């Protein structure tokens, strides 16, 4: 243990094993000629394509436009630090994720091949959002909730994102985008003013509405 070379080689070898196994190996493409790598099948997976009588389903699809911009808003505001985006399998926690109505199946690596950055999340201070786009929450609910979470969910501890909304004087007709406040929030708003979502808010909601990792039943998600 008095030779620097021993420490160096030892540190190198012990570390290399995990570096190779956990980082490099999964990076290599699954569709290479080496069959061993297909077993690791995480990187460069192909989307699932199903043709049922002329109706072609390709899943997942990369985000674009408003939803893609909204993803950046989600990323920059650290939403991931309270909300996860992964559904655990049936044998985890009494299948609670699915029983709560968060999904109809677990998530698998293929659900995330176009997610960049991937925001699986490790905290559920707030509910999981993997499938928030298909759980019955429409755009106006999201806008009201983002404006002030406590307006839609009393007792919520989520921060309010009023800075994504604009308070402005009504000119002529009220804007069709204006969100409808209720309760004390409505009372606090002066007459002749309306709350309108900014482009960022609309993008973020578009992103949330695009979250669907359950409608397409992937074969590998069945247990």
């Amino acid at each position, binding site marked *: 243990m*008095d030779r620097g070379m*021993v420490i160096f*080689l*030892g540190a190198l*070898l012990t570390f290399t*094993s995990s570096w190779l*196994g956990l980082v490099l190996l999964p990076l290599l493409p699954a569709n290479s000629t080496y069959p*061993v790598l297909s*077993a*690791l099948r995480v990187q460069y997976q192909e989307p699932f394509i199903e043709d049922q009588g002329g109706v072609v389903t390709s899943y997942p699809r990369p985000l674009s436009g408003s939803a893609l911009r909204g993803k950046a808003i989600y990323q920059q505001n650290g939403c991931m630090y309270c909300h996860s985006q992964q559904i655990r399998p049936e044998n985890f926690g009494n299948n609670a994720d699915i029983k709560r109505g968060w999904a109809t199946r677990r998530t698998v690596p293929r659900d995330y091949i176009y997610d960049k950055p991937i925001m699986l999340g490790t905290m559920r201070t707030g509910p999981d959002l993997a499938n928030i786009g298909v759980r019955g929450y429409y755009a106006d609910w999201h806008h009201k909730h983002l404006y002030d979470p406590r307006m839609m969910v009393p007792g919520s501890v989520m921060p309010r994102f009023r800075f994504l909304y604009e308070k402005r004087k009504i000119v002529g007709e009220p804007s069709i985008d204006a969100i409808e406040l209720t309760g004390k929030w409505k009372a606090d708003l002066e007459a002749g003013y309306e709350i309108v979502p900014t482009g960022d808010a609309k993008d973020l909601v578009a992103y949330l509405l695009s979250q669907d990792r359950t409608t397409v039943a992937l074969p590998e998600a069945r247990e």
Partner: protein
Amino acid sequence: MSAPRFLGALTRPRSKALRMTIDDFIVYAVLFGSVVFFGGAAVLALAWAVRDGQFQNFERSSRTIFDPHEPVGQLTDRFPDIRRDGE
């Protein structure tokens, strides 16, 4: 378990989840081979170190942090408001 149920468990067709594919086998082979390789390297390194005499009088190395000025048996840290006497 009753005899018929036990035998049934043995002969019941296995579900797909239990059958190992060739891919799984290759992964396990790679893992096992790595453990043999890296573990073997470690064992060899240890054997070399023993033969090289690095473990003779090994405990001596634990004393290298002491010297005549800060020898074994002497405390080298105290609160600034505790006087030096009476340890």
